[in-house]
């Protein structure tokens, strides 16, 4: 397993897209922190980018990589190796290299400019999002054989998580405007890792005071230890579940 992970990582680093992604994130983060006079505000702008770009790049890159290494996968399968090991190694290699890119690209500037509880929360959340969207990409690719269709599906998934889901939430809120929705919203936010991450970081920032009663309800839940543990558990579940299902599917897949 270690060997496969090593090969995957070396392969990914060699194809330079991840290096370009790292440099892009690095430049973006530094320029945001330098443009904003206030580092806390810089972090807020960076958050918007982390929540949009990181999932997009993670999901697209992972999907394309898996499709492109179809032959490599076939070769590995012919070896005396467990299919699950192969699949999880690919997942681990992808997740590690993209997480490393994020850690260097965003982590270093954040540590330099805004090494606070908020900054660290954003880093952890960003790392989670990277791995989550790699797992979702693997699930999407194992389901669809056709490359073009598979990439289309991943883009749609990204669109769903970053845009359509929020639209649905807004729709729900207006449909049930007469009911107290605050507590239910905590549950609903668990269904979208991007929303959950955004709320976790915002609650750590002082802009959370703007969120009024809703913010107070969320803070009451996520501010406590068990709320935090539940949030991290939900994010971990978002990694484990797609990865596990995709591994099972890959196990039975006719290559």
């Amino acid at each position, binding site marked *: 397993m270690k060997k496969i992970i090593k090969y995957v990582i070396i392969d990914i680093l060699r194809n330079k897209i991840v290096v370009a992604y790292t440099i892009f994130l690095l430049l973006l983060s530094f320029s945001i922190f330098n443009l904003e006079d*206030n580092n806390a*505000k810089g972090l*807020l702008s960076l*958050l*918007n980018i982390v*929540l*949009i770009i990181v999932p997009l790049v993670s999901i697209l890159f992972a999907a394309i990589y898996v499709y492109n290494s179809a032959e490599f996968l076939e070769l590995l399968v012919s070896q005396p190796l467990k299919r699950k090991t192969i699949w999880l190694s690919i997942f681990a290699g992808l997740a590690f290299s993209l997480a490393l890119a994020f850690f260097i690209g965003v982590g270093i500037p954040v540590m330099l400019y805004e090494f606070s509880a908020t900054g660290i929360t954003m880093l952890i959340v960003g790392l989670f999002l990277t791995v989550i969207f790699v797992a979702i990409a693997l699930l999407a690719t194992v389901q669809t054989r056709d490359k073009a269709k598979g990439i289309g599906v991943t883009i749609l998934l990204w669109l769903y998580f*970053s*845009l359509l889901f*929020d*639209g649905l*939430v*807004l729709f729900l*809120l*207006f449909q049930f*405007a007469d009911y107290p*929705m*605050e507590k239910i*919203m905590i549950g609903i*936010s668990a269904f979208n890792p991007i*929303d959950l991450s*955004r*709320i976790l970081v*915002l609650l750590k920032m*002082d*802009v959370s*005071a*703007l*969120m*009024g*009663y*809703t*913010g*107070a309800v*969320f803070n009451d839940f996520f501010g406590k230890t068990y709320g935090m543990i539940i949030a991290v558990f939900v994010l971990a579940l978002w990694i484990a579940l797609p990865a596990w299902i995709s591994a099972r599917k890959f196990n039975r897949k006719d290559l």
Partner: protein
Amino acid sequence: MKGVIIILCSCCFQASAFNIHVGSLQQFKTITAAVAAATTGDTIIVDKGIYFEKNLVINKQLVLKGINHPVLDGEKKYEIISIKSDNVTIDGFLLQHTGVSSITDFAAIKIYDRRYVTIINNIINDAFFGIYSQQGINCLIQNNILTANAIEEQQSGNGIHCWRSDSMRIIANTISGHRDGIYFEFVTNSVIWRNNSFKNMRYGLHFMFSNDDAYISNVFENNGAGVSVMFSHSVKMFNNYFKENWGDAAYGLLLKEINDSYIENNRFEKNTMAIYAEGANRIHIEKNVFKGNGWALKIQASCMDIQLIKNNFIGNSFDVGTNGSLVLNTFNNNYWDKYEGYDLNHDNLGDVPYRPVSLYSMIIEQNPPAMILFHSFITSLMDKTEKVIPSLTPENLKDEHPLMKSLPL
């Protein structure tokens, strides 16, 4: 014969006054004894030391002067000084530990229906009410430092409390840790100038039913809910600094049922809501700076004829919020950092109007739980489309001629 002489003397020397010294080495050991012995116009000079006077009642026209801030201690039981005469001056004392009661408003210094009282250069620590004016007229409260450690609203009083007073001058006091820093109820024709009110439980400054007053060049920082002006008219608010009144229910300035007032040249920085206006009519808001606030303005539809002219709006999360489509207020020539228009003839005025109310701020006004979408992709997308094709935001709420460059304020 003796009596005649005394009467003659008092007639002759009415203008001249004696100095009476109080202190452990002086003739009088307590201020109460000195006050009893004093006659109209005398000056009582108190040496440094600690005095337990219980309740010191001043019922003569006297000047009380402390040397190096002698301490008057209320033993957590008494009102320290009660002023029951006109023309009294209290200068340079340190007053501490008044009684706390939910029935009586104990104060460090209380004025009872009197005129021309001067309270200057005192330090007041751990008082229930600091300086209390009950029907005081033409009094001066200057250069006092009031500090308390309020924990609960019910268990604490106001720093400077004026009730049914007129022509008060409250100048250069520093107030912290009280319930309200300065509280005005039925106070008219008064001025609050150069005070510093911070870290108070509730409001830095609180106006109720107080007309024709002005507060100028004060700093209100980090108070529980900022400054509140309610049920008053003709209030002038100039050159004040409202700063870091930040919290779930905090305002820089809360306007409720207030008419015919002026808000000019103030700075609002880092408040959750810089100005919240409800039932406010005919208010002139000019040349203020709104910087880094959550909401710069929240003007409810119950407001009428508010004029917003030549203000700077910089780095606020939301510029203007409102709760209805009816807009009876005027916005003109303000600078908005979010303005994206152009200026073809270079007259420094934007050619297209600016709509300061974003779609998202309308949505959260109608549906507060939608706040969980704060800073999400969809809300910024909606705001952008709304800017291009306005449909839901109030049609008339717009700045016809926004400035291209910020005003040098």
